[in-house]
């Protein structure tokens, strides 16, 4: 069976982002089809498709939709276009190159679930993406694909383009909602575990990722069953992966979900083309910066959610970052930890203080002030953020960001402890330079 391109089919088409280009290539057929069906039937198709969320957690969309409490109104749709997990690069392309597909997905979802307003939250730094969505929405409004009485029916819904302003944590769905309410983007406490019960303005809210929703038009047009036939049993359809780092031809690829392997993607000629410069693979991050690292021996694992989970990591946001044997593991580890430290929202103590401490210790090691006991210290601080340092992580924090900083350290130390030790052995001084004082100004 040849696998159709489901979400990226228009990426190569010059005017695929315009209404004209979109319609010419079969756009808005899903919406037409949906409006012929009852909302419940549309929901049923998505359930049948077993579409897993593409934002990171991989929760089945159809099931999440079913968590909406009956008879509580209004309900909202919030589209998570905050893509900022290091290594992740797909939602931006979907937004820039096929905005109508996303809009169509949103509108269909609102129809199916009785959602009265949709907020399309696009990461602030994606200025071009915002322009494309704004243009697309403006066209779609005029032609009646969005807004009042969509395609002449009683179905009406506004899709509002909302801009982010630079904060990774806002990608976490409850932080996204806080941000959309005009607040600091700090995650809410769980429970409730899903905003489906209490979300935006305290009302039932569906939060879905851009890629997740971009699949909806195809599913409704072709049927959930057709979608479920593609891919593995529990990881259906296709999925977009960005392969970056030390590969010959880094790129963003839509591949069959669940059957394609890491080796295919990283080494395959039609994909990333193998490790650059004839070097060998040292490690790769299989699913975004939060994921524990994989090595040579994991290459043949299929891109299937449960298999990757069982192997001790995650597919996360479809971000594969490849490190070859020239990589300085301590620096790479420091880089990822620094990311989490800088992006901590600051709400809970272990994440706010712990990730920053980890960063500082690594800084010190890199700058030649490491001490042998720092390695145990790193691990103990990790243990205090995520007791047991296991996978999936236990957490002392509100959201998974804090524990995410533990993955790179645990991974790097497990396999490349000697690189840390090498830095430490070169330390100019066994005692640190800066000692804390209660210095007052």
């Amino acid at each position: 069976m040849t696998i159709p391109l489901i979400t990226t089919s228009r990426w190569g088409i010059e005017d695929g982002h315009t209404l004209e280009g979109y319609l010419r290539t079969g756009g808005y057929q899903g919406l037409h089809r949906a409006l012929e069906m009852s909302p419940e039937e549309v929901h049923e198709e998505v359930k049948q498709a077993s579409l897993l969320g593409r934002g990171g957690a991989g929760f089945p969309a159809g099931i999440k939709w079913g968590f909406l409490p009956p008879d509580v109104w209004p309900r909202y749709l919030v589209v998570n276009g905050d893509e900022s997990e290091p290594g992740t690069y797909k939602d931006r392309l979907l937004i820039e190159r096929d905005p109508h597909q996303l809009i169509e997905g949103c509108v269909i979802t609102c129809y199916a679930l009785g959602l009265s307003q949709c907020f399309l939250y696009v990461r602030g730094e994606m200025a071009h993406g915002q322009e494309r969505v704004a243009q697309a929405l403006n066209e779609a409004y005029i032609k009646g694909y969005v807004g009042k009485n969509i395609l002449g029916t009683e179905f009406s819904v506004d899709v509002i383009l909302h801009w982010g302003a630079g904060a990774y944590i806002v990608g976490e769905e409850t932080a996204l909602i806080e941000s959309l309410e005009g607040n600091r983007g700090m995650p809410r406490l769980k429970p409730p575990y899903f905003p489906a019960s209490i979300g935006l303005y305290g009302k039932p809210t569906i939060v879905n990722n851009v890629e997740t929703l971009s699949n909806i038009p195809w599913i409704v047009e072709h049927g959930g069953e057709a979608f479920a036939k593609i891919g593995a049993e529990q990881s259906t359809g296709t999925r977009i992966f960005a392969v970056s780092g030390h590969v010959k031809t880094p790129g963003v690829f839509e591949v069959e979900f669940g059957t394609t392997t890491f080796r295919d993607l990283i080494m395959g000629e039609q994909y990333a083309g193998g490790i650059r410069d004839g070097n060998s693979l040292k490690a790769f991050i299989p699913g975004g910066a939060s994921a524990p690292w994989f090595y040579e021996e994991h290459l043949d694992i299929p891109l299937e959610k449960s298999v990757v989970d069982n192997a001790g990591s995650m597919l996360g946001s479809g971000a594969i970052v490849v490190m070859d044997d020239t990589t300085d593991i301590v620096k790479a580890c420091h880089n990822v930890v620094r990311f989490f430290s800088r992006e901590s929202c600051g709400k809970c103590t272990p994440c706010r203080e712990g990730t920053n401490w980890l960063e500082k210790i690594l800084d010190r090691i890199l700058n030649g002030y490491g001490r042998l006991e720092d390695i145990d210290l790193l691990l103990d601080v990790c243990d205090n953020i995520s007791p047991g340092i296991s996978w999936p992580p236990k957490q002392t924090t509100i959201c998974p960001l804090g524990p995410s900083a533990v993955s790179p350290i645990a991974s790097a130390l497990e396999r490349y402890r000697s690189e840390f030790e090498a830095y430490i052995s070169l330390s100019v001084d066994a005692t640190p330079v800066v000692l804390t004082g209660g210095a007052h100004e």
Partner: protein
Amino acid sequence: MSNPSEEIDEVSVIIDGQEVHVKAGEILIDACESAGVDIPRFCYHKRMSQVGMCRMCIVEVDTGRGSSLQPSCMMNVSEGMVVDTQSELTKKVQDGVLEFLLLNHPLDCPVCDKGGECPLQDQTMAYGPGETRFVEEKRHFEKPIPINENVFLDRERCILCDRCTRFADEVVGDPLIQFIDRGNSTQVNTFPEDPFASYFSGNIVQICPVGALTAKSYRFKARPWDLEEIESTYPNPLGDRIVVQSSRDQVLRLQGLDSEAVNWGWLSDKDRFSFEAFQSEYRLDSPLVRGGGLNKAEKGGAGLVASSWAGALSIVTDSLKDVNPDRVAFLGGARLTNESQYAWTKLAKGVLGTDHVSADLGDELPAHVLLGLPRATISELCQPNNTIVLLTSDLKEEYGTLFIRLRHAAKAQGVNIVELSPTRTGLSNVAAVSLHPLPGEIGNVAEALVTGDIPREVGGITGEEIANAHEYLQNSNVFVVVNRSSIGQSTTPIIDAITSFQKLDNCRFLPLVRRGNTMGALDMGMSPGLLPGRNTLSSGSAVFSDIWPNLPAKEGADTKQILQNAADGKIDTLFLIGADPISDFPDRSLAKSAIQNAGTVVSVDLFVTPSVYESDVVLPAASFLEVNGSHTNVEGRITPIRQKVTAPGTSRPDWMIASEIAYLLGHNLNIDTPEDVWNEMTSRSAVHGNLGYPHFDNDQNGHLITATGRIPFLPSQERLESRPVDSYAMRLIIGKRMFDHGTITQMSASLRSLAEASQLRINQYDFERLGIDEGTKVQVTSGDRDISVTVKIDDRVPRSCALIYANLDGADPRELLNEGSHSIDIRIDPTVRA
């Protein structure tokens, strides 16, 4: 535990191996506490919503699905839950969190105000790892910055628990302090040049779990281990419960005491910081007499000079010898404890035989309203689905902790507030309905609201608005909170309104008083026609005749008539017991002339107020920090007032002064201690029953006296005619500010500067009609009276109304009051006449 309904609501959980029964749904951290297991916490505060931020309270919990780490402040107990607060993992996590919190915390405990009472310090002793493993530089911020006049913030010490910011936003609706920046750089701060101007800012100092927030009045004054403390009551109308803390006979701090019934631990700044006044240099510490300590006061003569008690009291007793009881009068008394009030009433009504005794200064609701309506407690008001009708001024200004309780009720307890206030208030944005009837029209508006017989428009309110509000009176319990919302409006329309609400089934009331212990004053008989225990002079004399030798022959005059009599030269001795009619009585010139024309004016006070200044004899009294006794709040709740420090100089408790005067006149009041008063009073007062003294010692909620109906409410017979305001005029509202020229505020260093200058406040629309600049001085006239005052735009004021706050620096709105009017119309002339 024998109450079956209580049993149903219980679940059994295992805490550290012990099975205990706790309230179903209770928050785990509280459940553990009541089971005697203390879980460390920083962000959790039981009077605020949970935020689960500090993560200190994490424990191991098993709800049947295996044990997991859970913040105990975020979990509700459920049947069969197994909790381990001592497990190795729990310990490890708590140690870890504490270590994290200490990373950036300065090691300046020895110079920190909180040192010795700091939860962080305590936890560190109990839990933390001994030695720091953090060798890098700590976070640096500029050391303490003032966030308002009274509170300093040291961001280096802050552990970002969100208590202060949550309090500001959630509890009092002043979100002027916020978390700024993100992650490890997060700090608490205000907007630049926009201070934390909250009436409640002292509370954040009290609840900050570390020494990040400090109060100017307390900084570096003491170490907690030097402090002694005692539970007491702040003698304001709500009787807020407090803890008085002192060191070396100096009060250093007042803290809110968490009483479930009243203030939940909160205090307004006006009360919290007012202790400074009582220790200020302005405090009277010896008697004063006019004109050089001669035996006879010289009217209009020299100023007040210090005197001995004997000298001062002899002037008083001389003026009282063989005096006609009808020529002796007493004003004031609301400052006093119940016991002192009783003693003074006994002197006046039992010894001197005069009934010219009134605690009201012309700005309270009449006694029959305060005593005659079926009363409700604050907690009864705040039950789910209740409707609370507010016939009040801005509670945020005058009744801080009641404002907090009602705000919470509206936001979190499912209570609907229907506000009928002269202006928008601090509660407007949580009220279900907020309407602002024209002053004078409240009776007509209430009538329409209650009956549902809705005109097109009444008192500036549309029929639609009234119909909407009317809905909230249906199918719920209705409670009415009422006060003298403006002295620019007579009590007649208010009584009309109450009369309407009385027609509702089961409607209950919480009438508010302006001055501290006015409720106690009424219950102790400090009102014409009344005797202690809500006995009337006519029917209750028999109760007292055996111990009160000279009961008055006839009912006395009210405040206004007393002042009139004095002004007319018909009063030989006028007692001002903590009363300052010149500042407070609506008709200032009458008050002045009364004091000038009375024979001998005797003030019993703490400070030289304008009225004290004009008195002939001044007797210095002890303040509530210096006496024992009790207080009665607006609910009728009696709570103890306890002495913490000694009164300055030779000042004495009020009851002792009364007793002394009686003695010098040859009568023994039989009062040697406040307890004596209590025993005598309770033996005669059916209202107080046989409350032992001090019966309520350890109950933070005090004791509620509930008797009603002894003094009947007198409903109005006829409703006041509606009187619309004509298009050239505006109707005057005289409001009250939390900080004004009131004596205590002015004598407190921390508060003095918080009072603003007098301004005329009108809304944008009316302002534009005037066509002048903001801040311009205008002439305001009412009949033949006028004042000049600057104009300020204030959109809380409804159209066609003008608000001036009383008792501020500058124009005195009392000048505009007109004898006998139910409401005052003014005209504004943009050009000030020379």
